Structures are given as structure tokens and as C-alpha cells.
């Protein structure tokens, strides 16, 4: 179980780091879609839900919350950048990646404290 959860965190972190880099370097095609779509539609919410609302045992509850939170973060982050006249796709993706990574790291810290 622990290995599974660590693997999930690893996938989340890898995709969160890869998506902004891929977009910044102008990678096109299905690979870009496959890597960037999770970051804008699932990962930040998933990381936050895993951190703050444990335990959710229904997969679809987790997915629904993760999608809703991720999309809400898309709105807030992109709109903030537009109003601040600093709109950049890579910038917003970077923000989403930071949220995702921070929540994932925070979760590991919390889990480690609990098991210690």
C-alpha cells in the first residue's frame, strides 16, 4: 500500500515538473496533451485533496474533488495573471506545478510525522 502511494506521488511530481518544461520548449502533439492535461485538470486538486481531506475511499469522490479543485485553481491562477498583466501559459502552469509539488511534499511530511 505504501509503495502504491509513493508511486502515485512520484507520478504526480513527474507530470507536474514535466508539463511546464514541455510547454516552455514548445513540444507539440499528443505527448504534450498527455502530459499537460493532467496538470490543468487533475493534479493540483489531487495533491491538495490527498493532503487536506484524507481519507477518501471512493475513487470517484476523490476524482470529482480533484477535478473541481484543479479547475478552480486554473480559473484563479489564470485570471490573476491576466489582471496583473503577466499572462503566460508557462507561468500559470508553473504556479499549478508549485501548488502540486508543495501539497505533495507537505503530505509526505505529515505522513512521516504520523508514522514517527
Amino acid at each position, binding site marked *: 500500500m505504501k509503495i502504491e502511494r509513493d508511486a502515485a506521488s512520484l507520478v504526480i511530481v513527474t507530470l507536474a515538473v514535466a*508539463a511546464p518544461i514541455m*510547454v516552455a520548449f514548445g513540444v*507539440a*502533439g499528443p505527448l*504534450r*496533451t498527455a502530459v*499537460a*492535461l493532467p*496538470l*490543468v*485538470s487533475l493534479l493540483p486538486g489531487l495533491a491538495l485533496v490527498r493532503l*487536506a*481531506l484524507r*481519507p*477518501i*475511499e*471512493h475513487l*470517484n*469522490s476523490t*476524482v*470529482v*474533488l480533484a*477535478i*473541481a*479543485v484543479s*479547475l*478552480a*485553481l*486554473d*480559473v*484563479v*491562477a*489564470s*485570471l490573476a495573471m*491576466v*489582471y496583473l*498583466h503577466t*499572462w*503566460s*501559459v508557462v507561468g*500559470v*502552469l508553473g504556479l499549478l506545478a508549485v501548488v502540486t509539488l508543495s501539497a505533495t511534499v507537505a503530505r509526505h511530511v505529515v505522513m512521516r510525522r504520523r508514522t514517527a
Partner: protein
Amino acid sequence: MTSTAPALVRPRQLAGVAPTSVAGLGLGVLALLATAVATSAASRAPVPVLSDVGLVAVLPAAYWAGPITLSIIFALALPEAARHRSLLTLLLGCLVLTLYGPAVMAANAPRLEVAWRHLGIIDTIVRSGTINPKIDAYFNWPGFFSAGGLVLEATGLSPWTAALWAPVWNMALWLTALMVLIRGLTKDKRVRWLTLWLFCLGNWIDQDYLSPQAFAFFLHIVMLTLAMTWLGAQPQVRLGASVEGAGVLPGTRRWWASRVPADTEKRRTAALFVVVLLGLAMIVSHQLTPFATIVSLTALILIGRCWSPGLPLILGVIVVAWLSYGASAYLAGHPVLFAVEPEVAAGANLGERLDGGSGHLVVVVVRMALTVTIWCLAAVGTLRRLRRRERDLRPVALAAAPLLLLPVQSYGGEMLLRVNLFALPFTAFLAAHAFTGRPIRTRGTDLGTTAAVSLVGALLATAMLTAKFGNARFDTFTQGEIAAGAELYRVAPPNALLLAGAHPTPWRYHEYTRKYTTLQDLCRPSDNADGCFEKLRARVRHGGNGAAVLLSRSNEESLRLQGLMAPETFDRIEGMVRAEGGAQLVYNNADARIYVIPPKQAKR
């Protein structure tokens, strides 16, 4: 006081699915085949749709194998809902594709002008990186569009593909969220699946295209789910009994004080933050939905089933803050948000929807009949729940709460539709009880119920297709009209006015901030051809840069079907445009013509 949230946390051993039987597998394969037959048949439906009752009249006979077979399989699987979770999930997916996909398959182009327009708003924000709230109301609630720009730019997905498949994706997203919401309302799996099924069949309201309201509706469902589960509460005494024993005020206080929260303080706090975040995203994205959410949350609080009485207030403050800042430009031109005479609201919501040709009237009647049927089934279901002493008021309160929005604003004549959508998850839930009269734990096939579910399912599917795609004659575009829409930007002189016959025109997906108008905007139904053409000419002269005039088949059909302009008048106006000095026919195909009126002649 702590307890687990009943809807979202369940012992792990219950989360598994019983092994799927051979019969279940067979039914699954049959459902996939029926869906394949239906979608393949839908892709052969002729476009343009040449029937006043819309797509339903031109779908090949083979298409109907889909909804009918799916209805029967669903009715057969329903009594053993706990065992057939995978099959029921598959059936729901097949139903979405079968009912929400035919127009996509038939036309292979996004329906509805407004979906194209939304692509133009996204394009404007992405290109400029700024928001000018003076452009129009959309730029006062730009959250969905900026996020849409982010998603499209980041993923490289084509805007066309996103708009084309949005109805199917949005419906899938709504249903996934509804699954979680309904789980908080009942343990009866038959009711859960039947609710989702009826939601699909009753949702003719056509708000599932690429739009802020579709996005906001998803957030609305998730917010209500959180309010009922982690932020939920349960009074320990009955209000009636409490008031009877202690008097109105003390009794009510005692009832209020007896509420216990559904979850731990830590998770309540986290859930509150999530609800506020979702509310913020909703408030900056859509004008109406936050009011429906606030009304629904207030209803939950008033019946003692939400632990956070301050939640509507927090959302209300964010709404006011946004109206004062982000939407202040809109408010300056529209000072009164919510003050409409009841007669005006009724006229806009109902009376105006009854205008039009005879085919269009059939569609309108089917829409009303479908809505009334769902509400009647909900009334029967409510009576059955009462008979079974199910005292949970939440579904009734949440079905009724959106009705409070009805008298306050016409919302462009669409409030009745929007209220129906906000109520639908709960009317569908109550309606599901009309078919599940036996107690939860009773199992086994009831032939009468199975027959009723399959028959009502097939009938509602037919009505839903008629209602949803009833305007297909004019809101489903041909490839010729789409080509003409693209050509318009190539042939129009710089800064020229872009003028179309009516609003169903596939345009504004780029160069959104140019000047656009239509004959529908310029003329009144009472105007004759000469009067309408004079208005067109005056508008072109006023602009001073000439005009590119796009007149299409869907324009003409729209004006005719809605009783706004006779085809003869439309043809006469086109003749006058052609005869205008200097006007040239620069593009022509089977479905559309483009005329360019140069600036000089327009000024003459």
C-alpha cells in the same frame, strides 16, 4: 462530536464490486453494440436538417436501436444494481454518447452560435493577455474563458475539438459529480442509478456546450455535495416535536442546538476552504449560478442539514465584491440586476417561448411536457417517500430552492430553463422513487417495475432528443455555412461591419472585438423588407467602413421558425443588398452567400 461523512467515506470492503455475471457481460456487449449502431446511424443523418421538429425527424431508423436497447438493459440490470455497478456505469456512458452525441456525429461541427462565440472570447483573452470589461458582459465574468485559454494553450487541443465534444464531456463530468452527491442522499443503489438515468433523460436544457454555465453547474454540484457531507449536519430532535413541546422560539432554538456535525472539525475546515475556492471560481465565471448556489445552501441550512450557517454570507460577500470590481463595467450599464415585474418575467420565460412556426411549437410543447413529466414523477416519488416515512427534506428543499430565482429576473428569457436545470438533480432523485416503491433491501426482479422503467426510459429518450435537438434546422451548421463563416474574415474590408442574417451564424470565433450585427438585431418582426433594409443601410452608413453581409440557410430558417421574419421578406432583403450600388457577391455556396458593400457606396 465526530462521525464519519456518510456519503464520501465507506468501509473499504463495501467499495468492491461483486463479480460480474455472464449475463451481465452479455448485456454489456449488447449495450456496446447498440451504441455503435446508434452512433453510426447518427453519423449518416442528413445535414442540413430539413425538418421543423429537428434532428429527431431525420435520424435513421437504426439509430433508435440505441436508446431502446439501452433502456431495456438498464431496466433489467436495475433491480440488482449492487451487483451490476460496472454494467450500469457502462450503460450510463453509452446513454450519454447516444443521446448527447448525435448532433456531433451528424454535423461534425460545434452546434450553436454561442459555442463559436465562446471560442472567440477565449481567443481574445489569450491573444491580448488582458481583459477589457467594456467589450461585453462576458468580459465581466471572464474566469471560465481565461481557464479555457490556459487548458487549450497548454494541452495543444484544438478549440474546434473542444467545442465539438463539450456536450459529451460536460455531461460525463456532471454525472460523475452527481454520483457522489446522490450517494449522500440514499443508500438505495437502484435510486442512485435511476436518478442518474433520469437526469440524462430529463436534461434537454442544452446548457452542456462549451460554456461558463456548464462549468459553473459542475462546481455547483460539487459545492452542494460538500455542504451535505463534510459540512453536513443532522438535528437530533424533530422541529415539529420541539416546537410543540417548548413553543415556537424556544423550540426552534432547541432544534437548532441539537444539530450535530457530520465530520471532524479538521475536515470541516478543509471542506470550507474548498467550497470557498470553488465559489470564487464560480463567481468570477458566471453571472447566475452563484445565486442558485447561495439559495440552495441557504435552504440546506434552514432545514438544519448544513453545519456552516455563514457559508451563504461568505459567498454573498464575494459576489458583491466581484460585482463592485470585476463586473462594475457591466453594472454601470445594467443598474438593476433583480427587479422585474412578475408579468414581465412570466412573459419572458414562458410566453415568448411559445412563438414560432407549427413545427417549432411541437418542439416547445414536447419540452414543456418533458419538464412537467419529470416534476410529476418527482411528486409521485415524494408521496412514496412520505409513505415510507423517509423524512429527509434535503432533496425536496434543493428541488424547490431554485424556484425562488424564477420571479426575480427573466435572464434573457432563460430563467425557467436554468431553474429547471438547477432543480433537475433533485427532481430526478425524487422521480426515481416513483419506480422504486419497495423497501431498499428487497431484491429480485419486479416485472411491472422493469417494464415501466424501460418504457418510460425509451419515451423520455425520444422526448429528450426532440426537445434538445428541436432547433437543429437552424442551430446545426453545414460545412458550407462554416466555410462561409471562415471566408467572411478573408473577404471583409478592414474595419468593415460584419453583418449576418440572424444569430445562428458560425462566426466570432476570432476577431471577436470587430463590429458585428444581424438583421435579427436590427429589425423587428413587424418590419417589412423595405423598412428592414433601410435599417441595414443606415447601420452600414453609420459605421462608415462598408460591410460584409453573410446570408445563410440557417439564418433564414431561424427567422422563419421563430416567427421573426418570413422567407419572402428575407429573400427580398437579399435582393436589395445585391442591388445596392457597388455591392458584390464575393462568395457563394449551396448554403451561404457573402456580399461586400464597399465604404464609398455605403456613404453615398
